[in-house]
């Protein structure tokens, strides 16, 4: 009896190992995809609808594991290339975030794909095309304004295309006198936009690509350029003292800051075009919301009456090398991306906010905020990539983690943060 039990267990063990091995073989009628259109992302429904249609049209199964983007998700996607479990197609960031797999030739360039499929992504504007990724839409960043709170003396500002730094100061003073928070700001977890726009407003767009050397920010080796960066970040303290960010001085979570704007307790919020998708259904009317560009700050290198915009096409569809070299997968991957990036699909994505990457994509019935965002390029002097994308991977965190010090006006900690940032660039 004992021998029978032992033999059975041994067989079970062997079969379970064999089962593990046999699981490695892949079906050719399945495509594995990953994107950041997961969770509550407003684009998720469009993305899933296109997947369903693709499955029906091509008779294949799309095994999609999309998730909301955060640092762990980004790392898990990049590390999947290390373990050989990368998807066939991914919708992912471009630039420094994608550099690990791009530099290791683990994704296929658009040029290489077009040698075999000359019409691949031909509807996408070449001006916004990444060498490896096909974008669907771009973003703009600026100040979202709830115009319903701009009554009385503030109404006249709504006739202007842009607001100068002095205008913003006057508007903030008036709002504070009415017990309205001028800017909703979540410095605890998302101080990014304010850090970037103050540096941009103070130093001009060239500063993002000419980050001062370590040692430039303070002490005897300080330079004029370096000191401008310190001044820019110190301004957060000045603005908090004036009451721009309410009683908490911005020391709160971004989720709460968003709620302050969406409930009409704060009049403005500095964010990207993706924020527009979340306005619908709140007490703020998307048709009565506009976006205005962040101005240059007077007395600065940025110059008077200049308006800058952080924008770009910083994400897109990639085909992995592994999928490309599997001939059965190659065409499926190309077809999948073609479906995702055809004009009709891009219109569907752009209806949710953002600048379409396809010039022939015409979005009808845009709401007020979308029209305003689309008009941003015409109202700005220069567009630039965000500092977080322009700087080395992982370095922007050094600036983000000291946000409380900027609000407190601690010059030593500002210099320390800038030194750490510059050291990694």
């Amino acid at each position, binding site marked *: 009896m004992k021998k029978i039990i*032992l033999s059975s267990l041994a067989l079970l063990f062997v079969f379970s190992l064999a089962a593990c091995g046999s699981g490695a073989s892949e079906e050719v009628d399945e495509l594995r995809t990953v994107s950041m259109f997961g969770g509550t992302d407003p684009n998720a429904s469009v993305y899933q609808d296109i997947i369903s249609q693709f499955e029906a049209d091509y008779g294949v199964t799309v095994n999609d594991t999309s998730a909301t983007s955060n640092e762990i998700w980004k790392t898990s996607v990049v590390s999947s290339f*290390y373990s050989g479990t990368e998807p066939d197609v991914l919708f992912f960031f471009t630039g420094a975030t994608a550099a690990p*797999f791009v530099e290791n030739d683990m994704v296929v360039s658009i040029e290489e794909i077009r040698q075999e499929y000359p019409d691949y992504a031909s509807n996408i504007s070449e001006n916004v095309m990444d060498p490896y990724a096909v974008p669907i839409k771009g973003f703009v960043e600026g100040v979202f304004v709830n115009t319903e709170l701009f009554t009385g003396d503030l109404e006249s500002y709504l006739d202007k295309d842009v607001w100068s730094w002095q205008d913003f100061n006057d508007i903030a003073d008036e709002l504070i006198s009415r017990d309205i928070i001028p800017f909703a700001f979540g410095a*605890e977890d998302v101080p990014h936009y304010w850090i970037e726009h103050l540096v941009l407003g103070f130093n001009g767009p060239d500063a993002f690509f000419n980050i001062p050397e370590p040692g430039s920010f303070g002490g005897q080796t300080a330079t004029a350029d370096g000191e401008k960066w310190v001044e820019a970040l110190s301004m957060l303290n000045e603005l908090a003292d004036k009451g721009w960010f309410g009683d908490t001085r911005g020391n*709160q979570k971004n989720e709460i800051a968003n709620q*302050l704007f969406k409930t009409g307790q704060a009049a403005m919020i500095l964010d990207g075009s993706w924020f527009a998708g979340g306005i619908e259904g709140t007490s703020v009317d998307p048709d009565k919301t506009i976006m205005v560009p962040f101005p240059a700050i007077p007395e600065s290198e940025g110059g008077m009456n200049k308006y800058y915009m952080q924008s770009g096409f910083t994400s897109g569809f990639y085909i992995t090398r592994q999928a490309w070299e599997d001939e059965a997968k190659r065409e499926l991957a190309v077809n999948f991306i073609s479906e995702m990036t055809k004009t009709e699909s891009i219109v569907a994505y752009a209806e949710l906010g953002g600048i379409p990457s396809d010039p022939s994509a015409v979005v009808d019935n845009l709401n007020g905020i979308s029209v305003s965002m689309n008009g941003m390029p015409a109202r700005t002097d220069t567009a630039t990539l965000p500092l977080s994308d322009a700087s080395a991977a992982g370095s922007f965190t050094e600036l*983000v983690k000291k946000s*409380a010090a900027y609000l*407190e006006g601690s010059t030593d900690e500002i210099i320390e943060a800038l030194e750490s940032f510059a050291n990694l660039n």
Partner: protein
Amino acid sequence: MYKSKILPWFFLLPILIFVTVFLFYPFGVNIYNSLFNFTSILDQNPSFSGITNYLNLFGDSTFVTSFTNTLILIALVLIFQVGLALILALLVSVIDRFASVFKVTFFLPIVISATALGLMFNLFYDYDFGMLNQLMIQLGQEKIFWMDPVNIIRRFMLTMGPVLWQYVGFYFVIFLTALNGISSEINDAAAIDGATGIQKSLFIKIPMIQNVTRTVFVLAITGTLKVFDLPHVISPGGFPNGELHLLGTYMYEKAFNSNQLGVAAAFAVIIAFAGVLFSGISNLIFKNNEEI
């Protein structure tokens, strides 16, 4: 029990292989990686840096802060979390009615996701929409900025408080099981001798569960070294300025935000060795009583 010595090994071997492949081997690789500088997770040729990652960490003021905060949290856990669990277990062990209600109530926070708990406490503390300030307004009082980063001690306590509260039930169950294992004859004999409830707790029950308390201390210390989720949700990035970082949250920042994988690997080694060291110290102080 078994005539053959092969059968137990047959069942033990898979788990031994599993632990070797998924714990010992990765830990060995992690120690190796801690001696290199990686430019990214896909860096095929990381540069050898020796013990530089360790030296950089010990010279990093935020690491020192995170280490100090973790030590403070360990002390708070041992005093308040384990202490409260023991008191609650002693009380529940002597009641006859509704004991199950208390058991479930105290244990419930453990089964709730720490992230969900963190979000819940955020909603308690928030200045504009929080429950505590709604209560203050109802009472005709001014709103309080509970999480004011300037008042760092209050913010520390409000961040770590939920950590202490969540796992009281875990140690409570362990203590209660141990207390229920004490022979009723000993309790009866003490009662006949005229011992009061407090005397029975102090001189009979607590000494008799000494070995369990020793294990609880080791679990509490090693568990606290790994605390991550609740503080990460309540004070993200150790806000303000990394002053509320714990070892777990700062290691996450190094690995996933700063992209310093070699430093993060060194961090993991330090946490593991700190766990072994502190557990050893605890075991030295609270020796095993073989007479129980």
